[in-house]
C-alpha cells in the first residue's frame, strides 16, 4: 500500500469506527465518547501549535474559554440561536488568539510558556471578575430550548454524539490536509529549525502567528461546542487545569501526529474516569502520567508507533 492509501485507510477507518460506535455503544460510554471527541478536537487544535510548530503554550484554556464564553454569553444575553452563537465563539477565539500571538510570539521557549500562562490566568480572573455575567465558578446552564441548532436538539444524546463526531471529523480532516500542504510543511520546518526556515525566506513570525490563530480558533470551536453540547458554561474551563490538559493529552498521544491527540484524550479520559470512581484525588493520575511521559516516552504513544512501525505516520 502506498503511504497515501495507508493514511486514508487509517484515519478513515477511525472515523468510520467512531461513526458506527454512535449506534452501538451503551449510553454511558456513548456520552463519554461524545465528550472525548470534543476534547480531542481541542487537543488537535493544541497540537497544531505544540506538535507541529514547536511552540509550547501553557495558556490554551484562554482560547477554549473564549469560544465557550463567546458562544454562551451570546446565547444567554443576546438571545442568539446556536448557529450565530457558535460563530461568535469562533470569532472571539480567533481575536483573542491573534492578540495573544502578537504579544507572546515576541518571546520564545520558557518565556513563551510563562507569558501564555499569565495571559490565560488573567483571562480566568477576568471571568471571575465579571461574575455578574459569567456567574464565576458556579457557571450557568444553557436550557434545552437554547440548544436547538438548525432544528436539531443538541441535548438529545444521539444528536449530541453525531454533532461531536462532525466537529472531530472536520478537525481531523483539516489537520491531515494541513500537514500535507506546503503550509503544514513550513510549520514543521519552523519546529525543526526556525533559523533555517527564516533563511529560506519564510516570514517565520507570520507563520507562527497563523499557527497560533488556527490553533486558538480550533480550540475555541471545541470550547463553544462543549458548552453547547453539554449545556454548561463555567470558569473551570478557563482555569490552568484546562491549559494543562491538552498538553497532557497531546504528550501522551504523541505530539506532531494527527491521531495522537485523540489517542491521548481517550486514554487520559478513561484513566481519570476510572480513578475518580476510587478517589477524589483523580488529578494524581494526570501528575504521574506527566512525569512518566517526560521521563520515558517524550514521543507519546503515536510517536512510538511512528518510531517503531511506520515512519510515514502523519
Amino acid at each position, binding site marked *: 500500500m502506498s503511504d497515501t492509501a495507508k493514511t486514508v485507510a487509517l484515519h478513515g477507518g477511525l472515523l468510520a469506527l467512531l461513526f458506527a460506535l454512535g449506534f452501538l455503544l451503551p449510553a454511558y460510554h456513548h456520552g463519554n465518547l461524545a465528550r472525548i471527541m470534543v476534547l480531542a478536537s481541542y487537543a488537535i487544535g493544541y497540537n497544531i501549535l505544540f506538535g507541529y510548530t514547536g511552540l*509550547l503554550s*501553557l495558556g490554551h484554556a484562554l482560547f477554549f474559554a473564549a469560544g465557550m464564553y463567546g458562544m454562551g454569553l451570546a446565547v444567554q444575553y443576546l438571545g442568539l440561536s446556536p448557529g450565530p452563537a457558535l460563530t461568535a465563539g469562533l470569532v472571539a477565539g480567533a481575536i483573542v488568539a491573534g492578540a495573544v500571538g502578537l*504579544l*507572546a510570539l*515576541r*518571546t520564545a*521557549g*520558557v*518565556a513563551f*510558556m*510563562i*507569558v501564555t500562562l*499569565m*495571559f490565560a*490566568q*488573567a483571562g480566568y*480572573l*477576568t471571568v*471571575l*471578575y465579571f461574575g455578574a455575567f459569567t456567574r464565576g465558578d458556579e457557571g450557568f446552564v444553557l436550557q434545552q430550548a437554547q440548544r436547538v441548532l438548525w432544528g436539531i436538539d443538541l441535548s438529545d444524546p444521539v444528536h449530541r454524539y453525531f454533532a461531536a463526531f462532525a466537529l472531530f471529523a472536520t478537525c481531523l480532516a483539516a489537520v491531515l490536509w494541513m500537514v500535507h500542504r506546503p503550509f503544514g510543511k513550513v510549520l514543521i520546518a519552523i519546529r525543526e529549525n526556525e533559523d533555517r526556515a527564516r533563511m529560506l525566506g519564510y516570514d517565520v513570525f507570520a507563520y507562527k502567528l497563523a499557527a497560533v490563530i488556527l490553533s486558538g480558533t480550533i480550540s475555541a470551536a471545541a470550547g463553544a461546542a462543549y458548552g453547547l453540547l453539554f449545556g454548561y458554561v463555567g470558569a473551570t474551563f478557563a482555569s*490552568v487545569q484546562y491549559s*494543562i490538559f491538552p*498538553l497532557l493529552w497531546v*504528550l501522551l498521544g504523541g505530539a506532531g501526529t494527527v491521531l495522537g491527540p485523540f489517542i491521548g484524550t481517550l486514554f487520559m479520559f478513561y484513566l481519570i474516569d476510572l480513578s475518580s470512581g476510587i*478517589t*477524589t*484525588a*483523580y*488529578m*494524581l493520575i*494526570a*501528575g*504521574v*502520567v*506527566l*512525569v*512518566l*511521559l*517526560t*521521563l520515558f516516552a*517524550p514521543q507519546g504513544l503515536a510517536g512510538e508507533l511512528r518510531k517503531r512501525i511506520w515512519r510515514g505516520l502523519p
Partner: protein
Amino acid sequence: MDIGPYLLLASLEGAVTAAVLALTAVGLSLVFGVMRVVNVAHGEFFMLGAVLAWWVTSLVAGHAALGFVLALLVVPVMVGALAALADMTILKRIAYDPERTIVATIGILYIIQQVTLMTYGPDARPVEPPFNTRLALPWIEFVDGKPHIYWPWGLSTTTYKLGVIAAAVLVLIGVWLVMAKSRIGLIMRATQLDRDMALAFGIPVERVYALVFGLGAALAALAAVLIVPIQQAHYLMGGDPLLLSFIVVIIGGLGSLPGTVVAAILIGLSDGIISVFFSPTLAKILATLLVALVLVFRPQGLFGVRRA
C-alpha cells in the same frame, strides 16, 4: 476609619505578605538562577510546608510554642529533602531541559497536591501561633491645627505578625551570608556562572543542583510555616504563592536575589494597599498582565542573560 489609619493597617498587612513572599520568591529565584529551570511545583512545596507544620504541631502536646518551634526546624528540612529527591529522580534524568522540566514539575505539582488531598483531606486547618499579643496602634490627626494622638478602632497588629517580619528578615540575611560569604555559596555561584567550567574544576554539579533545588523548596516551606498561624493550611493554598513568586521573580530580574527581595517588598506592600482601592481580583488581573508584558517587552533584561 479614615484613609490614613487604613493605609497604615494595609501597609502592616502588606509587610507580612512581603516578608513571606520574599522568602518564597527567593527560593524560586535561587533555583532559576543556579539551575536555569523554572520550578512550577514551587507553590506545592509551600503548601506542603503549611500542611506538615499543622501535622508536626498536632503531634506535640503542651505549649503551642513547643510544637511550632519544632515545625520551624523540622518541616523545611523534610520538604527540602523531598525536593532534592525529586530533583535526583526526575529532573536529573531529563538533563534539566528547560521545557521538559516545566512539564515534569507540573506533574510533580499535581502529585504533591493530590497526595495531600488523599492524606490530609480537603479541610483547612489552623495552627496556633506561639505568641500572639494584640497591639493597638496610635494615629495622629490634626484638630484645629494641633497634632492629636488617638487610637483608631481596628488599627492594630499582633506580636506574631511582627515576629514573622523579623524572622523573614533574619532568614534572608542568612541566605545572603551563605551565598556571598560561604564556600558552598561560592560553589553555587560558580555553577551558576558556568556549569561546564564548574564541572571541569571538579565541582559536583549534580549534587549542587539537588542541594539548590532542596534549598529553594525549604525556603518556601519555611515561609509557609511562618504564615500558617495567620492563614490556615489547605491543600490548594499553593496556587497564589506560586503566581506571586513568579511575578516577583520576573519583575525583580530572574536569578537576582536582591532584585527579588526588592520586588517582593514592592509587590507585597502594593498588594495590601492596592486591595484597599481595587478588588483583589482586579489587582491580580493587572499584576498577571504586567508580568506578561514585562516578559514580552523586556525579555532579554528580565529573563536573565543566556550563557554564551
